[in-house]
């Protein structure tokens, strides 16, 4: 799936931050911004909401904790209770370490899985879908062209005010 986009390339973080803020204020629809590193303040400039992956992590961790406690108490005190050194069958203090580890394991793995799924990250052999140099020293701003009246002159003028180095129309995968 791809669509035609207006893409403006910048050579600096400041340029793209300013341009992004400006085009958003001017009412353009931003498809995405492509940068070589995480630019601070870009989420605000683009008007993004905080990611909800935090909740995934929280619930996965809670699930891991529940599984760990259930497994330990059930195997030690229910399924086959054995007298081990006179300790109680449900030796709760001794179950804390494993419970903690599984909380972290479930939380961590699920969070990363959620990132991969949500951002559709999967192995791809080619880089045909990647804009040139955005993983090196270019900052690209992609604006949606289709579906509404797109004023290229205005977009270009705004970008020029923020030191754009190149503009283009490119097919960008959605």
């Amino acid at each position, binding site marked *: 799936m791809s669509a035609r986009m207006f893409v403006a390339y910048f050579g*600096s*973080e400041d340029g793209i931050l300013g341009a992004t803020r400006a085009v958003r204020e001017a009412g353009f629809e931003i498809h*995405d911004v*492509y*940068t*070589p*590193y*995480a*630019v*601070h*303040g870009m989420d605000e400039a683009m008007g*993004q909401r905080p*990611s909800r992956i*935090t909740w995934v992590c929280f619930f996965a*961790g809670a699930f891991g904790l529940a599984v760990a406690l259930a497994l330990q108490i059930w*195997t*030690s005190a229910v*399924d*086959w209770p054995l007298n*081990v050194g006179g300790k109680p069958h449900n*030796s709760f203090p*001794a*179950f804390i*370490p494993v419970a903690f*580890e*599984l909380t*972290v*394991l479930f*939380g*961590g*793995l699920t*969070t*990363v899985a959620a*990132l991969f799924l*949500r951002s559709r*990250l*999967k*192995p*791809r*052999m080619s*880089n045909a*879908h*990647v804009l*040139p*140099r*955005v*993983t*090196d*020293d270019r900052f690209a701003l992609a604006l949606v062209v289709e579906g509404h009246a*797109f*004023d*290229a*002159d205005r977009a*270009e003028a705004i970008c020029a005010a923020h*030191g754009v*180095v*190149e*503009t283009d*129309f490119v*097919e960008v995968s959605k």
Partner: protein
Amino acid sequence: MSHAVSPLREPLVSEARTLHQLTDEIARPMERRPTKAWWCAFLASFSALVLGVYCVSVQVMTGVGTWGLNKTVGWAFDITNFVFWIGIGHAGTLISAILFLFRQKWRTSINRSAEAMTLFAVMCAGLFPIIHMGRPWFAYFAAPYPNDRGPLWVNFRSPLVWDMFAISTYFIISAVFWYVGLLPDLATMRDRAKSAIRKAIYGALSLGWNGSQRTWLRYETVYLLLAGLATPLVLSVHSIVSMDFATSILPGWHTTIFPPYFVAGAVFSGFAMVLTLMIIARHVMGWKHLITIRHVENMTKIMIATGGIVGFAYATEFFTAWYSGNELERFAFSNRAFGPYAWAYWIMVGCNVLIPQFFWFKKIRTSVAAVFALSILVNVGMWFERFVIIVTSLHRDFLPSSWAMYAPTFIEVGTLVGTFGLFFTCFLLFIRVLPAVSIAEVKAVSGYARKIGVTTEFREQSAKKPVDSWRERNGEPNGHGGRTPPQPQSTQRSEEKKKGDKKEDAGAGADLVTEAGE
């Protein structure tokens, strides 16, 4: 950059660099042929690894009797090495997770290698709990899996089961954390790759990363969450390792201070190892402006702190043994300091308590050679710490009738050497195939605290150039409301390639100007 920065802050990248230069400098070592020095190091490490494989094979085939253990000293080199290597790994997680949470930006240029070090160290460490078993082929007995033995589960009260969960979780989470951190850099490598094979491999590994801000936002959230999870995880791992000893009833092993004390000791030894490796790396790779003398200094400062905690714990233990009024406790500690293994004890005290005190002096902190030597001594000391704790407590415990001495055999020493071989072999391969400094993170801080920032200069440079617009390329000098039919996709990519080459030249020009401006 718009961030308000105190005048006391110093730049993290000590020389001005454009973003492209940074990519180039970090990626280049992987794109050229290995140097002679690399081959020498690799052959040496690999030989050590072969020796280790031999020793482990002999031991597994013949029995634990090939080691110097006896019925009194049931653990010695095996668990010493295990704790030692786990400890080495801890600095990696500390740098990548804890310093991240503390917003210590200087971590960026060392975290990648430190995390790699963590993984390799945990691999070395994970070997020992398996081979130390009398019947390692039954190691899977320690995992709780459904079975038809009654059903027989595992003993969740045993610290060794905690260890198994802790270390496997630690390895998995560290590996995931490391890989997630690598994604943007793998994409950079993919986009730089000349050969089709490299492109395919880096392409597959980078999971189609395209620098999208929507992904970056989630990525940053995930990174923060992983850091938040890894921080208590790293504390828990060494705490659990310490509980192998502290839950016992043996004087010298059973002491409540062990969890925090082991964590501090682990970070202490881990930083010593990071320093050792980073000092070599900055020298060999020519990264003195990325891993600056300030990085070295900061790491030595952390070593003063953690070394202080370790020294404090030694003192507390010794004092409390006396304070307890318990004869066995008192004996365990006087035997440590004045018994037959006193030499090991004093090596430990000398290297771990006295050596870090040298780092109070700025002259020593800023002398790379001195730091290198001292960091190796610290690692020696930390190895001996574990040896002292394990062996001196075991060899003379409750009943004098069962007292015994311990001395390692060739097989044990060979196994230790072998793990160093494994560690360095992995590390040397790592710096050949993956960016050993995080490209994306270093770029993000390259302009930090720099009045004449890289980014500003680059912008001025590019602003002067006429904008390379799609209009000119299409031969349409006048505006037309954006209804241009773009070129068919196939030709467009080749077009872009040409463009890329052109920009490469322009980039080089910009570099020259930057350097002239300095």
